[in-house]
């Protein structure tokens, strides 16, 4: 590891942690309906939205009504995005005359964006019209993120309220998340990104003459290159902030017009984690015990940091086989060293590794380098971070509510170990909460392992694997880990734009999102009805280093025990084979 690695990563982490508290307080005040600037100035807009959509903001919903509203809104979103793709040839803002998207791909994309996964089986610039991108995908980028945040806020209310049957109003939570949190942040970020050179235009692609003509595969001379353009900056900002990750361009943030400078890179990677991290503070603030929020954030950081350095370490170390062949992989003033395959030279090792870790710790999935080209163990880190259930920061809202499911398990086991019916924040954790938390823990592994198992056996699915052996296996495992945890990151090396993968991954994303969201709302409803037990000497404090460590152990052990065999047959054996030179 070089000094540069350490300085860059420390600056990144420090900036992130510094922003947690101010943003966390701001979001808490928004959700509690207390004055916080924007919600005063734009209150008329908010009221106008409610009147226009016949929403009665004062009505608090039962968890079932809340869940129904959430599902209704999301399914409608899927239908709209699907329809836009199928009909785009006949609609406005299609200067490149894109044809209708095939049904299976349109389904996959619609589910992908509504579930905040943003898995992309398509190349944006070669498949979608500007209208589809803006009205379909960009809108979903906002509201899918807002959906996750709304569910989290409902869950937090479950902890705060006592003996109340309702958990808040979904529409209000959705509107406030979008209007006061996501939109302002996205506007600021897009403007900064535009200043760095990210494109924002309705112009069709530009053609430029090559400085040095080259020969194509057919032997003809090529003198021109098409530079695809579009309204990218507005989408890039929210794809980062809302842990969406679906790039405007196919290569995502590795594209110079999506992520041109080191500053744009820094801001984009920071945006991946900022809301998810700050929501921990919001949680602590709203339950009137900020230590609880810091505790959860600490657990996330404790898992994140070693993963980050592990990733940087193995990338910086480079490929031992290349070293044997006499290639110089040392970091010097003239080269970043390490494994530079699949990386942009303007980012180098450390920025690529930070991005890879952050984008998979959070359920973002955008990339600025190709994870398929990482060394086996550094490629395993992003995969494993997803397999942990997207709870290390995770998706906005969904990361924290997923983590709270783990907290419930941790509190339950530790409660038994001290001889008390477990309680968290004064709420007794009983069999109903356990059942729901169990579903939340169980669904992603089922989707990931079952999906992978079928895909490595089914002939048409196997045909899509581009690399043989463990690496090919890793590619399939990565794809399902990504879809089954609503990340959307792609390892690449797997041709997924076909009927099988579009449907299989589409279903994986759908189940992984809603079969987790609904049980957590049920937990919110159940907790809301309970009394609050005042803490005493016999209450297990859940903000101590001991409990944080225990929570970390539970997350790691569940993640490790579930995926160790699969990882052993993928990246681990690939690494051992490479270093041991056995085969």
């Amino acid at each position, binding site marked *: 590891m070089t000094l540069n690695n350490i300085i860059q990563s420390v600056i990144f982490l420090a900036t992130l942690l510094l922003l947690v508290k101010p943003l966390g307080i701001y979001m808490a005040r928004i959700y509690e309906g207390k004055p916080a600037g924007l919600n005063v100035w734009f209150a008329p807009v908010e009221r106008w939205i409610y009147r226009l959509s016949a929403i009665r903001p004062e009505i608090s919903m039962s968890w079932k009504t809340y869940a129904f509203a959430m599902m209704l809104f999301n399914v409608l979103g899927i239908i709209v995005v699907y329809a836009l793709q199928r009909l785009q040839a006949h609609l406005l803002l299609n200067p490149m005359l894109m044809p209708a998207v095939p049904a299976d791909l349109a389904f996959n994309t619609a589910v992908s964006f509504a579930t905040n996964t943003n898995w992309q089986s398509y190349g944006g610039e070669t498949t979608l019209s500007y209208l589809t991108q803006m009205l379909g995908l960009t809108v979903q980028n906002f509201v899918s993120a807002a959906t996750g945040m709304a569910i989290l806020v409902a869950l937090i209310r479950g902890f705060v309220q006592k003996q109340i049957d309702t958990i808040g109003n979904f529409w209000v939570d959705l509107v406030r998340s979008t209007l006061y949190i996501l939109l302002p942040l996205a506007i600021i970020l897009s403007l900064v990104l535009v200043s760095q050179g990210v494109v924002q235009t309705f112009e069709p692609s530009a053609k430029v003459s090559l400085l040095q003509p080259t020969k194509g595969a057919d032997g003809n001379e090529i003198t021109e290159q098409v530079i695809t353009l579009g309204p990218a900056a507005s989408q890039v900002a929210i794809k980062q902030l809302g842990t969406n990750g679906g790039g405007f361009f196919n290569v995502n943030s590795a594209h110079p017009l999506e992520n041109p400078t080191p500053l744009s890179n820094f801001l984009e990677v920071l945006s991946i984690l900022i809301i998810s991290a700050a929501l921990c503070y919001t949680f602590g603030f709203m339950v009137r015990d900020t230590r609880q929020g810091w505790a959860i954030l600490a657990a996330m950081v404790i898992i994140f940091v070693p993963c980050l350095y592990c990733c940087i370490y193995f990338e910086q170390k480079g490929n031992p086989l290349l070293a044997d062949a006499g290639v110089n992989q040392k970091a010097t003033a003239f080269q970043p060293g390490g494994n530079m395959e699949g990386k942009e030279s303007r980012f180098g090792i450390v920025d690529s590794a930070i991005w890879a870790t952050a984008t998979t710790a959070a359920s973002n999935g955008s990339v600025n380098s190709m994870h398929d080209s990482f060394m086996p163990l550094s490629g395993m880190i992003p995969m494993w971070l997803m397999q942990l259930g997207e709870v290390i920061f995770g998706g906005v809202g969904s990361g924290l509510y997923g983590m709270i499911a783990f907290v419930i398990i941790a509190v339950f086991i530790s409660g038994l170990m001290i001889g008390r019916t477990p309680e968290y924040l004064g709420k007794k954790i009983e069999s109903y909460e356990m059942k729901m938390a169990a579903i939340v823990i169980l669904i992603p592994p089922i989707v990931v392992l079952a999906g992978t198992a079928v895909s490595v056996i089914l002939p048409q699915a196997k045909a899509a694997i581009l690399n043989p*052996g463990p690496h090919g296996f890793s590619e399939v495992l990565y794809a399902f880990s990504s879809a089954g945890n609503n990340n959307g990151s792609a390892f690449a090396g797997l041709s997924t734009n076909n009927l099988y993968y579009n449907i299989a991954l589409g279903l994986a994303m759908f189940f992984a999102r809603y079969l987790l969201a609904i049980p957590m709302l049920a937990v919110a409803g159940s907790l809301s009805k309970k009394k609050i037990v005042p803490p005493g000497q016999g209450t297990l404090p859940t903000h101590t280093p*001991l409990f944080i460590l225990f929570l970390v152990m539970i997350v790691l052990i569940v993640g490790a025990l579930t995926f160790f*065999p699969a990882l052993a047959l993928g990246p*681990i054996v690939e690494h051992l084979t490479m270093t041991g030179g056995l085969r």
Partner: protein
Amino acid sequence: MSKSHKSKSLFDLSIIGPAIIDSFKKLDPRHQIKNPVMFVVLIGSIMTTGLWLQAILSQHGEAPAMFILAISIWLWFTLIFANFSESMAEGRGKAQAASLRRARRDTPAKKLSKPKFGSPYQAVSATILRKGDIVLVEAGDFIPMDGEVVDGVASVDESAITGESAPVIRESGGDRSAVTGGTRVLSDWLVVRISSNPGETFLDHMIAMVEGAKRQKTPNEIALSILLAVFTLIFLLVTVTLLPFSIYSVNSTGFGSPVTITVLVALLVCLIPTTIGGLLPAIGIAGMDRMIQANVIATSGRAVEAAGDVDVLLLDKTGTITLGNRQATAFIPAGGMSVEALADAAQIASLSDETPEGRSIVVLAKEKYGIRERNIHDLQAKFIPFTAQTRMSGVDLGDGRQIRKGAVDAIEEYVAKLDGSFPDDLKSAIDSISRSGGTPLVVAEHKKVLGVVHLKDIVKGGIKERFAQLRSMGIKTVMITGDNPLTAAAIAAEAGMDNFLAQATPETKLKLIREMQAGGRLVAMTGDGTNDAPALAQADVAVAMNTGTQAAKEAGNMVDLDSNPTKLIEIVEIGKQLLMTRGSLTTFSIANDVSKYFAIIPAAFAGTYPALKALNIMHLATPDSAILSAVIFNAIIIVFLIPLALRGVAYKPMPASRLLRDNLLIYGLGGIIAPFIGIKLIDMILVAMHLV
């Protein structure tokens, strides 16, 4: 935890024998299905047995027949060991039930036509008696059924139920009117109204509880079962998907052969939480058993579990916190009187007073002022006993002296009648005694007030430390007393209690409990009287004294056969132990899995990917020995942990964080490390014995 007279050694041969037989009987799938984790093991055992038969019959099994057989045998052992732990726990209960059953005999009963002693009776069998029937029980008769004494007083031998050989008094009215079927009247007679139908008596209930026949899963047990089911499902998924993963790997490398079903079953059984799954029923039964050994009968496992969660204890002052009677601690003379004269008069007045207060005055005068006890006959004294009307007692001596002692206002009235006056300076002394929680007892000789004796409630030795322990466990103590708030506050402070309820009535008790529950507290209390019944019914953990009334026993969810109010503390500890044992073994069970992966994964896949041998960090001899060692460890760890499951994890009162830290170190870290050592040892033994 203090052991009562009923405790048994952990491995009693008379229990082990039947338990072994029972553990085979329990292989019945209908029994196993109740426990999902162990049911999975049963399926695995049947599958591997089938694979072994296929291997020996067809000559080309998926693996060497001996290997499959070895795995299969150890899987069956895993089941049998788990069953054995349950049978052991049940056996201990059964032994107790058998002794109780001896008390339940078909006793003849004398059924009265009218609820009156002397009315004609008809001899019937106890089995035909119904609720509301009236029976006569005379000396030497067994009480046929549970009931309420409506007439008579008798001494009753209740040793069959309580184990206490001293007879107890049962009489109509008041708090000692409940009688239990199966106990025997030793003297006199009782007329009893039967209060329960056959099969519903206290004894029946006890037997059912002890045998575990009516055992229902408690809320925490259900929640834990869900967690264990989730782990089982996850690991089922992990192992099932390993087959396609393996097939893919073999196809893509062209080396080795796909992992066998036998190895997958072995891996599955090693990974699913069999340790806690197998021991779970035993832990529950043993918890109940420990309760019984503490001479407490709980009406449900739920109550035992709730005991561990209690955060407020309501304790009666008298008998629990204090010795139950006041003692003299000082003589304070009135102005112009000598303390010796006061002590002398007080002693004489108390010579015939056999109450504990009276005895304590005699003793104090002797110890402090050297005044020797005098013979009451020498003094030709006439004892004036205490009556509710006069509210004082005393003596009239042969020499004409009249000494009286009593409450302040009683003596004041007494001297006023004799034209005496009550000295003003004594008033301040009396006030300060009252303020400190004591009782002033004024002594007067004729119309002259000599002074005041300070009577004090004596807090039981060691009780303060006990409450401090409870506080460190996070349990608050509240004293319930009929005393005035001043006295109550002083005693509560002396005993180190957190709070008190003075001038308590059934209504105020009930109100206090409701308020605490509304604040999210779990409340435990003890009671014996009928007037305690509403509060007992409201409390989360309600321990009725066995000497108490039927109403109290029915309202409570536990009965303490020793009728010892401090038993609550022990009950809380047993409840906590029960949860802790489950939690610790769950952690241990899951932590074990780490080592099993390191044993089995390299063994199962090294044929396809030799590089995976690097994961064999224990350097186990061969793939077969590695897998077999993991399976054997998984089975015998259950046997090793049976004593822990039956005895329970040791509980020491300490703050929650420290308790968690200690248990995590032992069962979490220990759970990760122990199997590495265990599996390696078993592997070495297998190699040494040339079994692999």
